[in-house]
């Protein structure tokens, strides 16, 4: 970090001290003369402009860090607005964690990897340690979680949901070449069965919709003011995805040649042999088409009894596969 940044960091730290140590609102002019690092007044407009620019930027920086900077007037006679930081709003409240609780926090903070939440996790860790909590983030367990890796649109979608701003993006379904533009009030992002989804209110379709993050392309962009909408009360993101993706449970009856279909048997009940000596199996699934794929891969070893829609789905797959050989 170069000298310029060090000077800026020093000035910002001093500014925090100055505004935290006072109950009075402090005017910009007073800040200029008492906080080291600001361009002193020399009667020229250039110096005044330089100070103004620098101070504006510093205020924005502090707010970005989450410092609760207040503006106001101490008395009715003050001409200009002043600034202060209310200590109660600034300080992290007392928090004491037992060893086990601190270990849970340490483990939890290792779950993130994306730029946005991974960096935030590190910030939270630093603050908890500064509050006297001994969080050991590396202890004991060799663990590498990647909760949020590999979704380029994650940060933009998360930020828009957090700020409650309208999000515009291109959405490309796997069976389409060109994507379609969508305008959405994002309620949140959710990882469900290993995939990330954006859940929100689709403005053009005027209905709630679920979007796979991996199909969100073309630089998702937030627009309009923050807090532009309110997500439904008692929103359960995972439940919305589960409803939308479809979770009807089917009871499936199969027969499998003895010693085959080890994977299907792991989740099936064995109902005993049928008249040709195959094993009769029963299992339940919410993903009928994925099961059809799996059964087709077993070839002649596994036959579907019911439901009929699964049986015909498997026969369709087998018919396509049969056409692949040279002898067909």
């Amino acid at each position: 970090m170069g000298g310029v940044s060090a000077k800026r960091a020093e000035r910002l730290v001093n500014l925090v001290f100055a505004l935290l140590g006072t109950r009075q609102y402090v005017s910009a002019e007073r800040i200029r003369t008492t906080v080291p690092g600001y361009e002193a007044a020399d009667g020229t407009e250039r110096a005044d402009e330089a100070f103004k620019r620098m101070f504006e930027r510093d205020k924005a920086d502090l707010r970005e860090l989450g410092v609760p900077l207040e503006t106001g007037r101490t008395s009715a006679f003050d001409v200009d607005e002043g600034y202060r930081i209310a200590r109660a709003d600034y300080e992290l409240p007392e928090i004491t964690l037992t060893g086990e609780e601190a270990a849970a926090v340490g483990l939890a903070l290792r779950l993130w990897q994306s730029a946005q939440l991974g960096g935030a996790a590190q910030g939270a860790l630093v603050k908890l340690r500064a509050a006297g909590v001994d969080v050991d983030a590396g202890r004991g367990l060799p663990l590498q979680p990647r909760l949020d890796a590999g979704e380029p649109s994650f940060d933009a979608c998360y930020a828009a949901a957090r700020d409650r701003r309208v999000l515009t993006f291109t959405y490309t379904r796997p069976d389409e070449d060109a994507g379609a533009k969508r305008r959405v009030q994002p309620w949140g992002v959710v990882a469900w069965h290993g995939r990330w989804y954006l859940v929100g209110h689709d403005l053009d379709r005027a209905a709630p919709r679920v979007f796979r993050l991996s199909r969100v392309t073309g630089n998702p962009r937030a627009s309009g003011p923050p807090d532009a909408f309110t997500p439904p009360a008692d929103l359960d993101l995972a439940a919305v995805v589960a409803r939308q993706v479809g979770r009807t449970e089917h009871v499936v009856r199969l027969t499998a040649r003895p010693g085959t279909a080890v994977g299907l048997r792991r989740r099936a009940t064995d109902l005993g042999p049928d008249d040709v000596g195959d094993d009769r199996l029963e299992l339940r699934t919410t993903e009928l088409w994925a099961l059809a794929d799996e059964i087709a891969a077993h070839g002649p070893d596994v036959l579907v009894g019911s439901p009929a829609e699964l049986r015909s789905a498997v026969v369709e797959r087998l018919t396509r596969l049969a056409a692949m050989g040279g002898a067909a």
Partner: protein
Amino acid sequence: MSAPTADRMTRLLALVPYLEARPGGVTLAAAARDFAVTEVQLRKDLELLWVCGLPGHGPGDLIDLAFEGDRVRVTDTAGLARPLRLATDEAVALIVALRTLLELPGLAETEAVSRALVKVSAAAGEPADLAGSVAVSIDAREQVLAVVRQALQSHRAVHLHYYVPSRDERTERTVDPMRLLLVDGHWYLEAWCRRAEGVRLFRLDRVDDVAVLAEPSLPPEQAEERDLDDGLYQADPEQPLVRLRLARTARWVADYYPVEDVAAVDDPPGGLLVGVRTADPAWARRLVASLGGAATVEEPRELADEIAADARAALARYADHTGG
């Protein structure tokens, strides 16, 4: 503000309270570790803070630090005794991660996680309400996860049954656990497999009958953790090549497995030609068959013939059943 500047500001504002909370002082090495920076950087931070304080900068207005040997402590905080509140993203990262841990009872003590969640939410205040904008739902077989965690923490070997989907086989192995991975919503145990004499990834939902052994976990020196940046599967250029023609609905194969010689084609529309390397013909056969016609085999010819023959045999059985 750039990310490095923001990180440094967060650290600078936290350092004084951090020292204040440890009145006996801390070694520079320990503090550097806690802030995830080098000792050189930490020293620079402390030097910068030393000249900061209240306006006037007179005696009693400035931060005062005391260095004793390799230990540092704060003797005057100049009024900065507590860290800044959690920013929104920090509260969200923390609360969502703790909620995720609650769904993974095998990994941490559930009671402790619940209590930590209550305390952290209370300390976070308002930003905690925004944690609803991110949620994580994970499938976990908690018993297996708990056993594997116990083995890793006590450095013991593990005996397990593992289902291998590519061969539809249940195998039995003794492994030396190395680490736990969570990738795309699935947990994996990375371990030295004594049977295969190599590092293997075991997806926990395919593990049955797992037991921690009395003997220690001793992965040999050549056992290296895999770099997962290129995905879970890594291509071996020595292995035979299978060429596939993927329809649009099967294009995910090219994202999921390492492929080479990728070319877009118009037949079928939006299709893709790819090469996949594998030493296991049964794996390729099962992959293509499970795609149900959305992928066809260009090469080798025999593979296509085998898959088609299997499918015809299956269709013949269905025809018998319908007829009889």
